């Protein structure tokens, strides 16, 4: 039956999308590579040689091979499920992003607000997992993680609303596809001067979302022993580390979707898009690395203040400019 066959093929295609490209495998490999680049470049900025770019892979596989100790105070179910939930929700996010002319696999299934909330799932998974481990250090860690989240959520919301207004005009839109189409027609949002503060704000949000210096208060290994991850070992820890890398990847992809979607490659969309994607992802990560290299860890209250004043201020500037049609 041809209908049956086409259904089967469709299902296979969906499975391929979800598990391989641009889903789980792509995000995982891309994320780990980006993390490796981050570590390498950071090392070079500090005049070190640094680890090989594939170092995160080694870390991941090593942790997979280690023993998983489940502490007596932990609740085993939640403790083990939390990292997987985070990983899966991150891997699904890539399905909704249209990147450089590649339309998203499932563009009509989610919009900007959904993305905003899907982004919280990995953080919540980390928090719940850390809390389930029963360590007081983890308690402090999740508290900080939550404060960081409270901090960056305000500017992030503002940036997203700015984009929605800029793209949609008087009808405003949250759909990612609309954003891509508008940018193809009117040029990338990054090159509209009123959006530049918002783009900077977004770039400043990425490190907090990913949890790198100077916004790594939640997992400060030197003061609270890696916070929520303190009791994690073996495979769950590996997946949490993978989550961090994938979050980096997703955030760079989101940056491209929001601010760099306007580069029209014409008929070279397949190869050119891929190359451009890699370049822009690396550049975005380089911004993050650069911030990492030149700063030390902030205190949590300073971090919160920073996000609610400086970054939110930047986003607000853009929002007001866009609001008045600039």
């Amino acid at each position, binding site marked *: 039956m041809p209908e049956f066959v086409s259904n089967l093929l469709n299902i296979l295609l969906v499975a391929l999308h979800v598990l391989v490209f641009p889903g789980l495998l792509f995000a995982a490999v891309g994320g780990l590579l980006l993390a490796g680049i981050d570590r390498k470049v950071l090392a070079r900025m500090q005049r070190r040689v640094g680890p090989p770019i594939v170092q995160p892979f080694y870390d991941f*596989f*090593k942790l997979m091979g280690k023993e998983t100790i489940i502490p007596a105070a932990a609740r085993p179910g939640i403790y083990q499920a939390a990292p997987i939930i985070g990983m899966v929700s991150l891997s699904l996010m890539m399905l909704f992003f249209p990147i450089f002319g590649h339309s998203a696999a499932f563009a009509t299934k989610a919009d900007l607000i959904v993305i905003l909330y899907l982004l919280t799932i990995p953080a919540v998974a980390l928090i719940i997992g850390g809390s389930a481990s029963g360590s007081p250090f983890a308690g402090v860690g999740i508290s900080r993680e939550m404060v960081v989240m409270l901090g960056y959520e305000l500017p992030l919301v503002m940036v997203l609303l700015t984009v929605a207004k800029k793209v949609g005009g008087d009808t405003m839109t949250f759909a990612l596809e609309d954003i891509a189409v508008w940018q193809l027609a009117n040029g990338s949002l990054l090159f509209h001067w009123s959006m530049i503060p918002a783009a900077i704000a977004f770039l400043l949000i990425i490190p907090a979302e990913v949890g790198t210096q100077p916004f790594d208060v939640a997992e400060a*290994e030197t003061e609270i022993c*890696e916070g929520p991850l303190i009791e994690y*070992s073996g495979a769950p820890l590996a997946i949490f580390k993978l989550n961090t890398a994938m979050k980096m990847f997703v955030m760079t992809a989101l940056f491209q979707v929001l601010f760099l979607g306007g580069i029209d490659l014409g008929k070279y969309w397949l190869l050119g898009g891929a190359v451009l994607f890699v370049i822009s992802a690396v550049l975005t990560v380089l911004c993050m690395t650069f911030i990492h290299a030149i700063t030390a860890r902030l205190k949590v209250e300073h971090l919160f203040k920073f996000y609610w004043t400086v970054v939110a201020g930047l986003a607000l500037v853009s929002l007001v400019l866009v609001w008045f049609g600039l």
Partner: protein
Amino acid sequence: MFKKLIAESMTKSPWIYHVNTGSCNGCDIELVACLTPRYDVERYGFKLAGTPRHADIVVVSGPITSQSKDRLIRTLEQVPNPHCVVTIGSCPQSGNVFKGSYSVEAPLEKFCEVDVAIAGCTPKPEAIIEGLYKAAQILKKKREAMQ
């Protein structure tokens, strides 16, 4: 395939947990010196972990004072397998100049199996790198033995 990859990764990404059991800080400083741009052990994937749960190699410095003995043993228990124990300097191996004191419990062999001993008072960072590298190889063997 994954078995081999995992075993190989064991040597490439050993994370260190450092326990100071009453050391004079000489060895601790040298261990940190290994992480500086000059020696940069991160080249080989070495990283300082914040908790023993993440550690592959436990580095012990200091003459195991009786106050720190219980804490050290408890910490060593909490490290997931496979793991290695490395001693830096003379103190954990013998007690060094503190041996014979009522408050010193060295050597470490009394409490656990020591995989690599790095001698020196303090060892040069190069020696520490060498020792950690050796420990990483042992990790791989232990991982293979676990299978």
